């Protein structure tokens, strides 16, 4: 991953944070001084390097911990709201922004709504647990399932 791709990756993340949603290639092109074709080519290289995840159409699917589409993990932080890809990523949004957050999710078993307030990186409710089904070595085999 060369510096140009790192810069493009950082520009993509900045737009994701600023917009509160996944940016389009045109939006990243406008903010980075590149052409849309250059942005899309760089995105595919970043996708191959696991620096972000594209869908089949080449649009942003995940800029971990942020999710482009709705998920059962909604996170309020810094006056905005994002979707996270999973429980781990839900905590990652506040961690990446270095702010407190509130995670809105549900128990994966009984579907009871769960609201987790995270202050100073510490969840208020310590009774909850987190389960990882896929062994670490296989996380990227199917990142959507993981």
């Amino acid at each position, binding site marked *: *991953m060369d510096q140009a791709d*790192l810069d493009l*990756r*950082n520009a993509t*993340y*900045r737009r994701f*944070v600023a917009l509160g949603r996944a940016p389009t290639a045109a939006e990243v092109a406008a903010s980075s001084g590149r052409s849309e074709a250059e942005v899309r080519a760089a995105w595919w290289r970043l996708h191959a*390097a*696991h*620096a972000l995840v594209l869908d089949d159409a080449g649009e942003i699917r995940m800029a*971990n*911990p942020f999710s482009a589409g709705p998920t059962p993990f909604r996170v309020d932080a810094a006056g905005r709201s994002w979707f996270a890809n*999973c*429980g*781990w*990523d*839900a*905590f*990652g*949004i*506040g*961690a*990446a*922004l*270095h702010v407190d957050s509130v995670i809105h*999710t*549900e*128990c*994966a*078993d*009984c579907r*009871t709504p*769960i609201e*987790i307030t*995270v202050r100073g*990186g*510490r*969840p208020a*409710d*310590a*009774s*909850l*647990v*987190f*389960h*990882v*089904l*896929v*062994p*670490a*070595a*296989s*996380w990227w085999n199917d990142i959507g399932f*993981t």
Partner: protein
Amino acid sequence: MLVFRSEAHVNDWLAERPAGATIPIRKLAELAAAWWGDRLAPDWRPRNREQGQAILDHLGLSGPFWSLG
């Protein structure tokens, strides 16, 4: 990677599935801080396998299940 109300709910959900690993939510918060804390830093660089493994090891997440391969 899912959140549950308790370990009993994990076990109900798993049913016949092979279990993975269950950790307390506060351990997950520590892991997220270590894993994602630099994600928006201007000098962010991709993490290699050894660096990722060191984060897991530091939090006591070790053994074959937590091996990044």
